[in-house]
């Protein structure tokens, strides 16, 4: 009687390479567990990855559907990241002074190979304004601002305003005709702020004896522009707000927003 022998089929080369790779110390130091193809690892991947852990491990089915969220919140966030990245690249080239601002943008357009950073940044910004509006629209239409999510709706409204302000401050930076006149039209409004603008109702009442407290060189518009017209001061002020101040604040609020989405019981749904 011949002896029967079990022969292990030889593993294919790629499989062996893969097995070797995933057992190296380098690999195992990065990935703490095997691919998320079974339930245990689907939990682990969510818990051990800092980016994924914004999500819960499991979710109600309707909340995953595009039909419900339109993915507009997620896309707003993604566009914000794109804008941060492209904006950073733009900052390498751009100097916010009357002397250089315009010519740096011209240079960017003419000398940088495959230069679509400025386009990505500008169209991305327009797109983000639109996605944030649509996100708000969807949150309204699903009634998701109702308790317990009132506070998160409010965070959202503030971020909506910040998104518009980011867009507005960025609009000035190319320092062309389009830019300064759009900002001039926009910021002229501040002149008419009640009490705080020098052409606003009530401002004349704020006087010490004969001395007007509110005039063109210290009113709300001056504070916005760092000057009495859209000039050097405004450019610097808008630049700093656009590149540092506002992104910091909105980034901070996004963290709160996402945290609250989770803490308010995950994506909304019928009770």
């Amino acid at each position, binding site marked *: 009687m011949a002896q029967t022998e079990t022969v292990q089929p030889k593993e294919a080369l790629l499989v062996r390479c893969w097995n070797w790779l995933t057992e190296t110390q380098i690999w195992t130091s990065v990935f703490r567990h095997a691919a998320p193809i079974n339930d245990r690892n689907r939990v682990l991947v969510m818990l051990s990855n800092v980016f994924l852990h914004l999500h819960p491990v499991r979710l109600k089915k309707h909340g995953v559907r595009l039909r419900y969220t339109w993915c507009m919140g997620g896309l707003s966030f993604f566009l914000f990241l794109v804008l941060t990245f492209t904006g950073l690249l733009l900052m390498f080239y751009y100097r916010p002074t009357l002397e250089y601002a315009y010519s740096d943008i011209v240079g960017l357009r003419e000398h940088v190979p495959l230069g679509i950073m400025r386009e990505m940044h500008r169209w991305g910004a327009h797109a983000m304004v639109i996605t944030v509006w649509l996100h708000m629209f969807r949150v309204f239409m699903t009634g998701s601002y*109702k308790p317990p999510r009132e506070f998160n709706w409010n965070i959202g409204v503030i971020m909506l305003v910040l998104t518009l302000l980011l867009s507005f401050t960025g609009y000035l930076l190319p320092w062309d005709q389009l830019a300064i006149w759009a900002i001039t039209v926009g910021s002229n409004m501040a002149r*008419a702020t009640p009490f705080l603008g020098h052409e606003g109702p009530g401002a004349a009442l704020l006087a010490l004896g004969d001395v007007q407290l509110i005039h063109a060189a210290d009113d709300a518009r001056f504070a916005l522009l760092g000057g009495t017209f859209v000039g050097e001061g405004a450019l610097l002020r808008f630049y700093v707000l656009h590149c540092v101040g506002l992104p910091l604040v909105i980034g901070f609020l996004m963290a709160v927003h996402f945290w609250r989405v989770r803490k308010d019981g995950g994506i909304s749904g019928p009770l």
Partner: protein
Amino acid sequence: MDLIKAFINLFADPRLFFVMSVVALAVIVWKRELFSKDAVGYGMLGFLAVFFGFGLFDENFRLIVVKPDNVPIVALIFLVVFFTWYSIREGVLNDRRIAAGDDPIEKQESDRVWVWPDLVYTELIALILCTAILIVWSVGLEAPLEQPANPANTPNPSKAPWYFLGLQEMLVYFDPWLAGVVLPSLIIVGLMAIPYVDTNPKGNGYYTFRERKVEITIFLFGFLVLWSSLIVLGTFLRGPNWNFFGPFEYWDIHKLEPLTNVQLSDFIWVRMLGQPLPEHWFIREVFGIILTLAYVAVLPPLLARMFRRYYEKLGATRFYVTAMLFLMMLSLPVKMLTRWIFNLKYVVSIPEFFFNI
């Protein structure tokens, strides 16, 4: 062809434009069963596509629509139309389910799924699509760069960035302190107040129309009629000197529009009472002041009386806050109508204090 264009130019007049958008909203809300049919949704998108496609053959139309910074608004028109249709449709479908004794679809789908892979992959695909669109858009359309800034040379028209054009359009009817400062602040306050004044516990976490008729109608009025449509108007239909131009009309700098607007004080003192304007501003404006005070102080209690049911449901504070915000929102259409019908410029006009309403 020219006849059609002339016809459309005529219809895009701000007055007709506004009235038509109000009527459209009313029809959407009233005939929502019909509106939510697939054929209507795709039909509207198709119609828009044909309209813009056909319009591009016209030089004047092309000039404003393909201006790089205006392209997003074309996209916005399509998106807003689509998502309005879509969310109403989902609401109507759920209303039908509820009427038949079922749960809304969101409830039926409340079993849990794994975030990996179900959600993570959806996100990944959305993200890739978004990147692809953005790259194509960026390669295809160069960001605008005009002449270097020149404070001595004011372009005509001077427009704010597109997302503020609804506010700039308000400047036609209100002074900057209202259109540029007070009303925008009230928009923000109003949005923030929504969760606190809306006490309706229904419709939380699913699409519905029937359970939230009033809320949704008011919101759509603000978002579609007052915000989005005024942006479209301000972008495409306002030319030099902020004059109105039809979509197929040439932006002629010399177009003159007769300005025959009058103040309320003129109306009453000069035309009705046949007297010269009184010297003192208070006497001169006393009728306007009374009207304005009535609007903000007498109307809300009157509304409370008329809408007893809401008053009791919401309680005094919520009701008055809501009524106030609502009246502020309506002040724009009120001012528009009085302008169009009576050529009224200001209700109260005290230039001495920069105080015009």
